[in-house]
């Protein structure tokens, strides 16, 4: 298994967000599905130590994530947030900033292509792009780190139906071109069926099911 969570509990502001969650996520395409407020995004952030649980253990490749350097871990297990949050400057500035964190020289055109944007976007100011375009730049920025795992937090929640389909197609195509595992967070069970092979289901902070999508989310 790529990730294993063992009796993980987390509270925020006195409220229990995750309660005694034990679950596994294999290599390949998996997802965390559940209704809004079920703790999906919080769980995702535990996988690359953007947060730590109050109790329980998160293991990556068999080792407790707390034994890893958090910066190296995040470059290897990279999270793309739900809403775009780019730095001031051009698209290329954003991609270069990320790549330099991992001492890499980015192929900006290729990264944009992987994220479904053409090379002309490189010089455009990041904050002038549409939400969908910014989300793709976020993806290109993360890919510049050459991660082993991409954590995708509701990547289409801010998009209209047309843009959502295009981003899904980009992500599916991406996995054919780049050797990367993905963990997708979604409240949309239909999207979970389209995008993942394995699902962990959450409800009100508790794990309510895990397994193959074909079994867990059979129509």
């Amino acid at each position, binding site marked *: 298994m790529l990730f294993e969570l063992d009796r993980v509990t987390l509270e925020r502001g006195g409220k229990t967000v995750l309660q005694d969650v034990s679950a596994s996520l294999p290599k390949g395409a998996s997802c965390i599905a559940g209704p809004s407020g079920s703790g999906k995004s919080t769980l995702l952030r535990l996988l690359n130590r953007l947060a730590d649980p109050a109790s329980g253990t998160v293991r990556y490749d068999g080792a407790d994530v707390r034994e890893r350097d958090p910066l190296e871990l*995040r470059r290897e297990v990279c999270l793309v947030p739900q809403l775009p*949050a780019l730095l001031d400057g051009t698209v290329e500035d954003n991609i270069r900033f990320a790549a330099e964190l991992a001492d890499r020289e980015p192929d900006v055109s290729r990264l944009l292509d992987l994220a479904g944007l053409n090379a002309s976007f490189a010089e455009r100011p990041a904050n002038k792009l549409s939400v969908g375009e910014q989300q793709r730049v976020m993806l290109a920025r993360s890919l510049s780190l050459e991660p082993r795992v991409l954590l995708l937090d509701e990547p289409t929640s801010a998009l209209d139906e047309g843009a959502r389909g295009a981003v899904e197609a980009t992500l599916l195509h991406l996995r054919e071109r780049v050797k990367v595992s993905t963990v997708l967070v979604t409240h949309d069970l239909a999207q979970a069926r389209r995008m993942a092979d394995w699902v962990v289901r959450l409800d009100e902070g508790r794990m309510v099911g895990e397994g193959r999508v074909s079994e867990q989310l059979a129509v």
Partner: protein
Amino acid sequence: MSSSIHVSIGEVAATLVLVGIAVAVSFWRSADLEKDIGIAVVRSAIQLTAIGYVIKFIFDQDSLWFVFLLIAIMVVFGAFTAKQRAKLVPNAFWPLLIALGIAGAATIGLVIALGIFKAQPRYLVPVGGMVVGNAMTAAAVTLNRLGDDMTRHAREVEATLALGATSTQAAAPIVRRSLRSGMITLIDSTKTTGLIFFPGTMVGMLLAGASPTDAVRLQLILLWTLLGSVALAGLIAVTLAYRNFFTQAHQLREQPEP
């Protein structure tokens, strides 16, 4: 620079006519500031009279220890006051105390070492007061902006952390903007000094009968000294305070809502 002027109580009292105008304006336009103006006048009279006696005592003692004690007290009160403007910054008191302490000590130490002022209470008390006062304002504005921006832009900060950036790298744009906010007021007033307004020291010296050349030179010394102290205070305060938003593992202590 040794001139003196005697100001009578009657002359001070006569300026209450101008305060009366302020009260009248507030009353006429229903600004509801009459009470605040009254409090401001009474507090300024009491506080300045009290500090006047303290300064007279220190001048009479002619001991640098009392100067240092006075400045140390100002630093502590300055840190408490500035903390009120930095409510969104966790544990802001200590960064502010260290910032004001170092900015005050370094600035005063430098002006003495460079031979700009003699190490005597009559120079160090007013200069120290100005340095700590301006440093406090700058540090308060800097941390106020830091707290606002770290709260408002928590998602951007976390998105940068998610790429494997350190907390220093993730907070860098906000730290830069905060430092600019803290310094820009003094820089702007330094740019426009003599054109749009006459600064207080220069006015005071001219009223006291000093030559305009001396008044201008002393004013320049103070303005440039304050630039240094304000930069130091803002830099130290923000450098120490931004860390309080993060854990050792480069995580935000207050996680943004998903």
